[in-house]
């Protein structure tokens, strides 16, 4: 039976690469499925809406109306993968709410598969936030993102025991290049004929990680 994945990209820290990851994941899902629905709850940081306005809508969790508008969309098993770029300022409120309303249980009942992509960092806020997620989210659905650009070394022990998705650091000049609002990862793969370039390989490696993540989730649920 069809399940609908909901990827929630989050961290209690700003500027750890959430939006970069959300952009890539959205483009990967668009490439693979032809459609994706993205939600930007990240308006205080670089915004997904600026990069992918055609598939992104803004959302809020500051009040109950905002929560209703967002969660009532997420809980639908419509076959369209969802990506949420959750800003650091909304982290606590979002997961407090999902806990209170029993989001994980209801999602399982409705064949919706939330996947939490927690962008790891070595600071105290991240160390405090991760166990909170572990209490609420099953081991299969909680993935620590080891962004080399942020962590630069070993992941904190608590985060290294579960599932990990590694993202290699990009050189600064490439980072500046991909940060342009007009840049498209899939567009680059299509237009750049030389597949040996560092960026080409970086994007392909990340797409492959997403593909592996998808497959492992499907296998573990079957």
């Amino acid at each position: 039976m069809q399940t609908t994945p909901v990827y929630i990209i989050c961290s209690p820290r700003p500027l750890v690469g959430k939006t970069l990851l959300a952009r890539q994941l959205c483009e990967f899902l668009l490439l693979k499925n032809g459609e994706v629905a993205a939600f930007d709850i990240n308006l205080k940081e670089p915004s997904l809406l600026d990069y992918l306005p055609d598939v992104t809508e803004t959302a809020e969790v500051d009040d109950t109306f905002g929560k209703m508008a967002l969660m009532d969309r997420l809980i639908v098993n419509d076959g369209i993968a969802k990506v949420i770029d959750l800003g650091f300022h909304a982290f606590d409120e979002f997961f407090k709410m999902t806990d209170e309303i029993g989001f994980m249980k209801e999602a399982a009942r409705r064949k919706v598969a939330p996947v939490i992509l927690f962008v790891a960092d070595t600071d105290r806020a991240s160390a405090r936030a991760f166990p909170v997620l572990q209490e609420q989210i099953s081991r299969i659905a909680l993935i620590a993102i080891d962004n080399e650009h942020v962590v630069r070394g070993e992941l904190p022990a608590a985060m290294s025991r579960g599932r990990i998705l590694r993202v290699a650091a990009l050189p600064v000049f490439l980072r500046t290049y991909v940060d342009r609002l007009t840049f498209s990862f899939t567009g680059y793969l299509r237009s750049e004929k030389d597949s040996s370039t560092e960026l080409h390989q970086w994007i392909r490696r990340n797409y492959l990680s997403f593909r592996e993540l998808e497959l492992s989730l499907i296998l573990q649920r079957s």
Partner: protein
Amino acid sequence: MAKPVVIVVGADKGGVGKTTVSRTLLDYFSANNVPARAFDTESPRGTLKRFHPDLTEIVDMTTTSDQMKIFDTLNSGTSVTVIDVRAGLLSPALASLRDIGFLDAAKSGQITFAVFHILGPSIASLDEIAETANFMGGAKYFLVKNFINDTQFFQWDQATYNSYFHRIKDATELTIPKLNELAYEQVEVASVPFLRFVANKGLHDEAANYSFVLRGYVRHWLAAVWSEFDRIKLTELVGSSPGKRGGEK
């Protein structure tokens, strides 16, 4: 045959959440498979009846005929009778119960009688406790601090409160937590029991389309209220064995 159980929910002040507490009680009994009926004394237009029309009858407790309707039918087979007493009517209602010999029957153990006294934030509520205490001989007495309507209990001096609270032997305190305003409002608009709202169903069991978020808030809140009822061993009080209940998933 099981002993009849009468639960009076009241306060001498309006707007403190009497009907809300009555609704949670009816939902709790329904989930625990305890047959219950209710009387709404907000005659002629009862709020409780709007939410539980099949279980509720509107009565005027000041009239003898309606007192007969309630108390002469206690042995009709339904084990629990919940009476939602209109604002300002708690003390007179208890006085009527005393006059008809009901309180004596409770004292002698023929009937299980419990009072859920919903407290408001002001000192007037404490005077109510003192007044009510005179009638509480054979009753289980529960003082309910209801936070659902954002009541703040800071106006009370704890020592003063305790001095009133301890006047009633074996009084037990209960706390009803706050429910998200929008969720509360949506249940009001839907006019269904909390349980049905959580299950996304209308009054006649038809599928409804309530917000998942609001249903989640109500489910979370109802679980907290029921855990208070579990804490005071309400199912045992009404003579039912505690077991796994339906509707709580």
